[in-house]
């Protein structure tokens, strides 16, 4: 009885005031960003760094806010995101089946292992000229080079997941009378899922990197990469710093989104 009433009191207390643990957690989360702005501001007011290189953090935030509200930065962020999503979609559609096929067959995997490792180690940006040659100056060459880099990550991770499927689980399904195909669908697929999702998350992060760089250097009309390089060239410092922050936020949110999906879908992962 006493424990029930204690619980009730605790619930009431929580609804009235902020739970000290939650408050502490939020303070810890926010401490980092606040410290960054504080250090930035200190450098700015003390003049430790030339004011021509570093604007005030508050001016930057205010300018970024204006740019977001006016829609010009939102448009660029959306263009970048849309390219990343297209690249990611292509990479996933082509990468997951390829990874499964590769992982299911040891000798095929061994044959292609060197190629995968080689191209994984090749900077995707080194491929820009090749993709420009193949796909022209348009938007698709940017999407294609990002898709290629993301595709390798997905293939590699999916194949790895298939190869590391627990043999006991497969044996258990087979002992219950599952056909090879059925066991693959019911067991290997789920066994592979955690590693596949890790691959997808890394792929979307890499896709963003490649797209932003491509927008800077291979003739984009819009996008965050184009915006950052334009701001630098026209010496619009608050826009440049603000665009960098927004690009970072884009990457952070994509990662957060995938982590949330991962913990929902593969709730058993690592347990």
């Amino acid at each position: 009885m006493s424990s029930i009433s204690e619980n009730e009191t605790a619930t009431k207390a929580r609804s009235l005031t902020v739970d000290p643990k939650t408050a502490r957690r939020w303070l810890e989360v926010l401490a980092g960003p606040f410290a960054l702005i504080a250090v930035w501001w200190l450098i700015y007011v003390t003049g430790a760094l030339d004011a021509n290189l570093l604007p005030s953090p508050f001016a930057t935030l205010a300018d970024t806010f204006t740019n977001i509200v006016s829609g010009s930065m939102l448009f660029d962020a959306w263009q970048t995101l849309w390219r990343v999503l297209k690249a990611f979609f292509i990479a996933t559609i082509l990468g997951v089946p390829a990874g499964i096929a590769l992982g299911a067959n040891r000798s095929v995997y061994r044959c292609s292992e060197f190629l995968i490792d080689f191209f994984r180690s090749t900077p995707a940006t080194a491929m820009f000229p090749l993709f420009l040659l193949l796909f022209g100056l348009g938007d698709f060459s940017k999407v294609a080079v990002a898709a290629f880099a993301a595709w390798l990550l997905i293939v590699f991770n999916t194949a790895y997941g298939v190869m590391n499927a627990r043999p006991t689980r497969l044996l258990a399904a087979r002992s219950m009378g599952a056909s090879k195909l059925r066991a693959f669908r019911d067991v290997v697929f789920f066994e592979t899922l955690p590693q596949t999702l890790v691959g997808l998350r890394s792929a979307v992060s890499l896709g963003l990197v490649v797209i932003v760089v491509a927008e800077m250097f291979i003739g984009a009309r819009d996008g965050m990469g184009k915006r950052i390089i334009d701001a630098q060239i026209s010496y619009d410092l608050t826009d440049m710093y603000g665009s960098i922050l927004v690009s970072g936020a884009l990457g952070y949110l994509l990662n957060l989104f995938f982590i949330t999906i991962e913990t929902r879908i593969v709730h058993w992962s690592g347990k």
Partner: protein
Amino acid sequence: MTQADGFISIRNLSKSFDGTTVYDTFNFDLPSKRFISIFGPNGCGKSTLINMISGLMPMDRGEVLYDGKPIKATKISYVFQNYREALFPWMSALENIHYPLKLSGLSAAERNNRVEALLADFPVPFDLNAYPYTMSGGQQQTVSILRALVTDPDVLFLDEPFSALDYEMTLFMREQLQSMFLKTRTSMLLVSHDLEEAVQLAEHVLLLTRRPTRVAEFVEVDLPWPRTAATVTESRFVELKSHCLNIFQREVAGGLAA
């Protein structure tokens, strides 16, 4: 007719790994509808034997007949030592138990009936809607055994099912398994590395020699049911166990002296 009715007949079984002969024309008839423990020295191929009898592992030569029928015409179930890797963590415990019935194509209604009937016979004191990884080892292995029993198999194979559990849980699980056997009278083949467990649970203990493996003795355990924790201190139990131990030591020592 070489095969007898009411037997699991192992005929001319041969198996070797990388040139090491484990079984060479091994022949034996195991009576069906019995609880049989398999015990022997390390590396004699206890698990290999039930893996081959159950069809999980191919044999080099030979055949196994269940009451004269081949393995394909027999319903078998298998309980693995590593329950953590044998259960499907993406399914709840209940869905795990449903799974073999789903494989045999039963409708949801039929499956529910079967599972409910099973759980009426063997009620579990924990929530089967939970995922396996939230459960204790004993609970997970209970789910494994229920999943194995739900298809009403002709033979249930258990490969050291309790060796990953702590002692207290092992004692409890022995009682559970015993009551399942007494209720269903399904043929059970238990591989054990624990002689006490092998004798306590079984009607027969199949004692194996070192490689190449032969039958050292097929010991009948004539202890009354149910066999409780007190059983293992009774004189007849101690007598049977030390008899098995003597044979085991003779086989191990014989192998080591060579």
